[in-house]
């Protein structure tokens, strides 16, 4: 299905799934992104900071879901990606998305995405805008 033909309120044709997230996934993302915050990989540091374990870097699921959406609409059309983080993500979590077309205006499209964990808790919301060149 051509996602550019979706109507406002239509669900995206596929859903995105990530996980179960491993510590290797976290370390690999940290190495690729340059975010070396120890709270995401250092057990002792995380516990001293009051966490039960190293927590997943928020930008890891954020980056993965926005990459998936960019692949649907086309990497050249991405104009804005905005995330709001609403809950911690832990190693072992599996995340799934639901998303709809929020608006369309000529060559512009906006989608809203929601990523939930295996308990159904929303861990992040994302709004992305795309624009197709004439």
């Amino acid at each position, binding site marked *: 299905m051509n996602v550019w033909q979706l109507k406002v309120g239509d669900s995206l044709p596929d859903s995105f799934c*990530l996980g179960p997230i491993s510590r290797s*996934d976290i370390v*690999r*993302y940290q*190495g*690729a*992104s*340059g*975010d*070396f*915050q120890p*709270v995401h990989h250092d057990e002792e540091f995380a516990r*001293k*900071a*009051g966490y039960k374990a190293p927590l997943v870097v*928020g*930008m*890891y699921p*954020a*980056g*993965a879901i*926005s*990459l*998936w*959406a*960019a*692949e649907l609409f086309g*990497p*050249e*059309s*991405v*104009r*804005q*990606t*905005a*995330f*709001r*983080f609403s809950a911690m993500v832990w190693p072992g979590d599996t995340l799934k998305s639901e998303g709809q077309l929020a608006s369309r205006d000529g060559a512009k499209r906006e989608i809203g995405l929601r990523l939930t964990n295996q308990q159904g808790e929303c861990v992040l919301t994302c709004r*992305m805008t795309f624009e197709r*060149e004439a």
Partner: protein
Amino acid sequence: MVAAVEGLSGARFEMPLEQGKLLEFIESLHGETRLWSHSSAHIAPTFLTSAFFWEARTESADVKRNVAFDPARSVHAEQIFTYHGPPPKVGEKLAGQSRVERIYEKTNRQGKVLTFVDVVTDFHDDFGVLRASATMRAIEFPEETS
């Protein structure tokens, strides 16, 4: 004092957009590499987060270090990447500069005062054109009183 750094700008830093670095980033996010593995690929929506590498190599570029939030009481709350046109491509070189845009407080429903900081990084190309902006919002929660 956290509020004292509001308005502070960091030094400009260079960020070359390298194909290998982009692919490493795409693979870490389980992307479809065939879409991103050509020599004129656009960067991924969140690739500019890897500016960490380039900021760290330039003295006084990383203004986030001047925001003295306690890591045990602070979280990354929001993140926005804005492209002012099609996203830049592999092979381009961007000049980034970060600033502490705003520091402010809000009181939550429990009556606790939370401190917010917005750090904005603008990315210009070789022609001086603003190509992208990244906004990072963090929140520091108050210390628990016993």
